[in-house]
């Protein structure tokens, strides 16, 4: 167990190191940082001084070391466009993205797993077939189109729900939450459905496939032959054994929720990190891009690691192999 954890940790460190290197190279070599920081009327002399002061003449490794040290402390420099520290901008927008991703994750699990179980158990019923066909369309529907259609239907035609922004937020220390106001909650509905839909279909199809696989196995047949009630067989024996792959995929999907939030946020003008990132790409605002990249990589590495450890906890066979 300890050696497994150590190996896993080392792997994560290597990934983070690579990502930091990429982020730094972006910062250093895409365009001239000095040109991006100063105005047109700065003299050549001042530019040279600034270059020296920022340490841009130091060897590559020294610069990279400094960048990494600063990054660990959350300092990613100053945005080229807005002239304010990037860390502050991201911290301000992080709650919006995390709340959205959290609601979407819950939604996709709470709806996806039961639908998957249902379509596996009642494989030939009309409703199952309809759900499966709909889910195929769901997979082919790009996230931004889902958003646009929801806006058109619930926002423009029915005028039931707000279609942009977060509504009213309440500040809890440095965390701004939309969970506590009516307009905040209402604003969450459409974006979170949009974000959840793709993951939901994925989780549903996965649970269904795994359930079908497990239902064919001998121990389930035997449990049925023993006369155990169907409910017990289906949920205690079958569903439990589908959980390992479901946990893995769900964990990985949690990461991609944060990434896909970029699209959802831009459709709904949701003031989160994704919207900040996409604007940064359009403006070639490298410090924001670098900071976002490192942060997202960190999320992903953490999630992957937790998933691997959970895997270990859920499946006793893995433990037996290693000891």
């Amino acid at each position, binding site marked *: 167990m300890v050696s497994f954890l150590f190996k896993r940790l080392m792997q994560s460190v290597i*990934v983070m190191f*690579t990502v930091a290197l990429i982020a730094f190279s*972006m910062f250093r070599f*895409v*365009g001239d940082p000095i040109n991006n920081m100063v105005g047109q009327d700065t003299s050549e002399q001042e530019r040279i001084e600034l270059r020296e002061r920022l340490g841009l003449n130091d060897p590559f490794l020294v610069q990279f070391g400094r960048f990494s040290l600063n990054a660990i402390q959350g300092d990613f420099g100053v945005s080229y466009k807005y002239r304010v520290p990037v860390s502050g901008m991201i911290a301000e927008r992080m709650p919006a993205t995390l709340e959205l991703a959290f609601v979407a994750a819950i939604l996709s699990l709470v709806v996806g797993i039961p639908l998957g179980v249902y379509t596996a158990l009642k494989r030939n019923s009309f409703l199952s077939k309809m759900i499966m066909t709909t889910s*195929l*369309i769901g*997979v*082919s*529907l*790009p*996230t*931004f*189109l889902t958003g*646009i*259609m929801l*806006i*058109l239907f619930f*926002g*423009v035609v029915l005028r039931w729900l707000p279609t942009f922004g977060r509504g009213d937020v309440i500040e809890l220390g440095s965390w701004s939450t939309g969970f506590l106001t009516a307009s905040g909650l209402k604003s969450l509905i459409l974006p979170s459905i949009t974000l959840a839909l793709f993951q939901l279909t994925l989780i549903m199809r996965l649970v269904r496939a795994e359930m079908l696989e497990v239902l064919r196995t001998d121990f389930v047949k035997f449990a049925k032959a023993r006369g155990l009630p169907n409910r017990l067989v289906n949920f205690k024996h079958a569903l439990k054994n589908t959980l390992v792959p479901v946990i893995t995929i769900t964990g*990985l999907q949690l*990461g*991609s929720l944060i*990434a*896909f939030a*970029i*699209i959802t946020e*831009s*459709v709904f003008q949701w003031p989160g990190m994704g919207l900040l*990132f*996409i604007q*940064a*790409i*359009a403006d*070639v605002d*490298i410090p924001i*891009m670098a900071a976002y*990249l490192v942060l*997202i*990589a960190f999320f*992903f*590495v953490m999630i*992957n690691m937790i998933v691997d450890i959970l895997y270990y906890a859920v499946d006793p066979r893995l433990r037996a192999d290693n000891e």
Partner: protein
Amino acid sequence: MENIVEKSRIARILDSDIWHSFTRSPVAIISSIVTLIVIFSAVFAPFIAPNDPFDLVAIDIMDSSLPPAWEVEGDPRFLLGTDDQGRGILSTIMYGARISLFVGFASVIFSMIVGISLGLISGYVGGRTDAIIMRIADIQLSFPAILIALLLDGVARGLVPKEMHNDVTIYVLVFAIGISGWVQYARTVRGSTLVEKNKEYVQAARIIGIRPGTILRRHVLPNVMGPVMVIATIHLAIAIITEATLSFLGVGVPPTTPSLGTLIRIGNEYLFSGEWWITIFPGAALVILVLAVNLLGDWLRDALNPKLR
């Protein structure tokens, strides 16, 4: 001699399992017809489009924002209505599909070339080369492809001078989407190569002194292409969606040569004024295309899977 070989090849295709499975699957037939129709109308858009949306002389501002032809204020010249500049939606969709399909196919081919080469090398050479390539693949696989495409797109935009943006973005897109997709190919090809390289025909080729590059190209490659075709089909759908998404986000194809994604982005601004057709029709075209390609990929995967026969 040449003729006989050609003939038997067609006969072989008509007699193959794939063809049999194709003729028995209505889904596969319908989706391939749909795909072919879209490809046809995209390729021949300049000849069959009802009006030319990029000919500034032909566009009339008086025709702007017309609803589809079947609505009260519709105009029979514009079946699916017009946008704010008086361009027929049906025609812009045809021209847009051209760009979407070009980026889709080009980036799939790019991914294939990169992925297959690295996969072949990784599997055949083994050792440290293999370890390095597969580690990179692992790292890349732990991030969603769309994020990588976005990032590469962003970086490449930074490297290209601003005034050249409109000319090169399409190649930047192909590069970004292509790189974001190579891992699937590399992994599959590596797996098959590991199996093939120990077979007798490869050993025989090695013994008679054929160079490794030639062995890989002439002997191993043809035998690992089956699964690659399945991945390529499904990847085409993903590539088209990715292009549309990037263009929708405003970091893809510029509005001067709009793809389906760009059209949806443009139309999205008119959604609230009730001009739904500017967005919805390009969106529908995109979904139909992607759905058809996806279904085709699904069928191909099942048809090539020996377990399901």
